[in-house]
């Protein structure tokens, strides 16, 4: 007997109970489409988060003193290290120092405490901060140690209590009795991960002048590197260079280095776990759908006992009968899988469309593997849950089956 004929007979069986077959399909459809929606949204989130991270902080290593060591044993970065690292390392684009402290700031009679950062003119290139109004600190400001400040929107809000940001350009802000001219206002770029824009940026030279004691050394460096070089490469080089200059503490470096590659991986892992948890919950409904298939197949076999008897009488072997009912259940489950894929992909595209209207950075898309896996799993469900009913059908005694009322 040819397979095409077998499939036709089974299709007739599914088709002859349209409504019942549809309800059975529905169980699988709901299961598959929810799996697909969960995974699509999960992977979309991952793309957005990962994408934003990579765009902003890719090829960037953060270097600071090793806070895991006792205070006296920690390394202190110095400004000379900027040139030392920039010139000695292979693949480095730039080494950008950041000085930082917490200070009182004043405007009129209002007071507020915030982070003050001493930076170079390149600070905006390597963080998610961006200039909204006015201008950034220039090399000239740094050279002549100007008392100028670029202030975050959030700081202005807290300090002055107004959101008319552009009007603050040219006004004064006091940081511990030093009057600074506001030359720019910072926003944050559209990003799901943001550094706080509650910050005041001033030229690092000015910073060192004012806080002579604790402000002499940069708090951290951001090392940027080219696309030919890996994060690990940079970390190893920097570690080697700093260890040879400052020595180690019982084999431990006095400095800590980290890149976002590992952080992106961590975030990806978290999203992956969430996606898997949600996907598994959805998969349970798929299991319920599978049980529905088995249930309906058992009913079908019972109902068609006489047909089974007759088919055996006119020459069907047990294998023919078994494959007929197994195919029916595969058609039900696999068909439900196909429809579920269509429904799931459509709904997740729709959700993506809606999200992308609200959030310009949203990226949708259903990963191909989940489509393929869904189809494979539903077909497997058809086989697993269809096997017992089909086996039962094949073992029916033809004589009793023919007499069955």
């Amino acid at each position, binding site marked *: 007997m040819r397979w095409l004929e077998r499939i036709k007979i089974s299709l*007739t069986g599914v088709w002859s109970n349209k409504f019942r077959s549809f309800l059975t399909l529905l169980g699988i459809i709901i299961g598959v489409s929810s799996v697909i929606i969960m995974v699509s949204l999960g992977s979309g989130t991952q793309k957005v988060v990962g994408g934003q991270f990579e765009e902003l902080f890719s090829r960037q290593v953060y270097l600071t003193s090793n806070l895991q060591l006792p205070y006296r044993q920690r390394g202190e970065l110095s400004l000379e290290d900027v040139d030392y690292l920039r010139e000695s390392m292979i693949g480095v684009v730039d080494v950008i120092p950041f000085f930082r402290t917490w200070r009182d700031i004043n405007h009129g009679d209002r007071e507020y405490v915030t982070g003050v950062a001493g930076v170079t003119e390149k600070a905006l290139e390597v963080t998610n901060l961006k200039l909204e109004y006015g201008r950034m600190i220039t090399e000239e400001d740094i050279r002549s140690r100007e008392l100028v400040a670029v202030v975050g929107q959030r700081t202005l809000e807290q300090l002055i209590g107004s959101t008319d940001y552009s009007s603050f350009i040219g006004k004064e802000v006091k940081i511990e009795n030093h009057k600074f001219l506001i030359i720019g206002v910072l926003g944050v770029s559209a990003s799901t991960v943001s550094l706080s824009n509650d910050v005041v940026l001033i030229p690092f030279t000015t910073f060192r002048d004012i806080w002579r004691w604790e402000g002499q050394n940069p708090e951290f460096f951001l090392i940027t590197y080219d696309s030919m070089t890996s994060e690990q490469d940079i970390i190893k080089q920097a570690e080697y260079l700093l260890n040879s200059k400052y020595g180690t503490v019982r084999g431990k470096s006095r400095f800590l280095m980290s890149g976002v590659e590992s952080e992106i991986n961590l975030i990806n892992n978290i999203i992956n776990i969430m996606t898997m948890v949600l996907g598994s919950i959805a998969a349970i409904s798929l299991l319920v759908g599978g049980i529905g298939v088995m249930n309906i197949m058992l009913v079908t076999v019972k109902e068609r006992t006489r*047909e089974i008897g007759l*088919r055996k*009488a*006119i*020459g069907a072997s*047990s*294998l023919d009968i078994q494959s007929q009912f197994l195919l029916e259940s595969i058609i039900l489950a696999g068909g439900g899988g196909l429809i579920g894929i269509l429904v799931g992909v459509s709904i997740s595209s729709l959700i993506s469309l809606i999200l992308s209207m609200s959030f310009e950075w949203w990226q949708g898309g259903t990963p191909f593997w989940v489509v393929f896996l869904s189809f494979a799993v539903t077909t497997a469900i058809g086989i697993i849950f269809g096997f017992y009913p089909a086996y039962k059908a094949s073992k029916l005694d033809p*004589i009793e089956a023919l007499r069955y009322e």
Partner: protein
Amino acid sequence: MMIQAEKITKIYGKGEIAVRALNEVSFSVKEGEFVAIMGPSGSGKSTLMNILGCLDTPTSGKYILNGTDVSNMNDKELARIRNRKIGFIFQTFNLLPRLTALKNVEQPMIYRGVRKKQREEIAKRVLTEVGLGDRLHHRPNELSGGQRQRVAIARALVNEPDIILADEPTGNLDSKSEEDILNILRDLNQRGITIVMVTHDYDVARVAHRIVHFRDGEIVREENLLPDDGGGSLEMD
């Protein structure tokens, strides 16, 4: 010899509740013969039919169908024998309700592996032969009892079997349809097809050449109706 059954015993169940449905029955049917099996219900005649039809296997004994020993065949081989060598006709017709007459008749050929076009041709031809050329696309519930049984006969014939086994073929029919069906069977027999028919109706059994009477799982009497064999007491028309 078309059918040669030697000392066939069939026991249902085990131990205390075991029922001996057939007790060492020896029975044979010549090629081209028309044999009727009669007996009260529970006499073992249906059991014998199932064994002859390769739907069931005997507990002991030997069954040779047209020279082939089928007593020890496996499921697949028996299915093949049922498909190619045997045509079944049932009291309750056993047509597939959702299929047209044509499709119903095609079914045995599907299991034989005949291609669709040829299947349709043969099914049409055989349905026309049994007088249903104008009912090809009717479903069973659109046909009368007699017409349904004729579809079933067509279905039994399409694979050109050696033998037709009919289990109470007229049991569910009115007398007019009964006559039609018996005429068709007689025609088939005259064309050389061996027929074994179970019935409880003596008038129906009279169509056969020979009547085998069953009681309590054993053959109690045989009646030969063919005048030239000398044993028959009833005339044929």
